[in-house]
């Protein structure tokens, strides 16, 4: 088993772990119980998804998916932020 094969398996393993992490997040998303739990779940889901995309880039050997991850990293928080503000203030833009 050469190093590349190890890397390949490692990445698949990592992706499975990340996917499981997404499952955990989605549990909160679905089960709640409160709105804040769901929002937290969504935020986690976003981060996990971003990491999954990065690992996917390694797996494919292409940087073309980097910007997708970058967009999640930079802007993914906006929707959760809006949700949080909505909970606190009842409206997103005052």
């Amino acid at each position: 088993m050469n190093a590349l094969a190890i890397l390949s398996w490692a990445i698949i393993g990592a992706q499975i772990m990340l996917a499981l992490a997404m499952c955990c997040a989605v549990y909160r998303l679905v089960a709640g119980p409160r709105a804040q739990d769901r929002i937290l779940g969504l935020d986690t889901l976003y981060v996990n998804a971003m990491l999954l995309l990065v690992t996917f880039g390694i797996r494919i050997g292409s940087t073309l998916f980097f910007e997708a991850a970058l967009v999640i990293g930079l802007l993914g928080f906006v929707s959760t932020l809006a949700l949080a503000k909505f909970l606190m203030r009842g409206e997103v833009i005052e």
Partner: protein
Amino acid sequence: MMELIFALAIGILTASGVWLLLRPRTFQVIIGLSLLSYAVNLFIFGMGRLRIGAPPVLENTESIDPALYADPLPQALVLTAIVISFAMTALFLVVLLASRGLTGTDHVDGREDAQ
């Protein structure tokens, strides 16, 4: 196998979307329309078949082998569809708000079920 998962994914999105589309509350309908738009976007995308690791971005411009790239056309179509469905979601949302304000109900018919 991936094809089956992909197909089932579209099926689930469609079923959820259709279910919501047929509900009486405007908000349910807008969520349903969004889910349906995911389903439809994936559907269009799937019409170019599934290719892993072949994004249609030319790396070597000297000799171009079309077989190396995923079908770019459905992707372009999906992009257009995404934009349009975003616009329509916005419009539907505002109309449902206006309807709620004017009719006093969030029933899709603008009046609570009489029957």
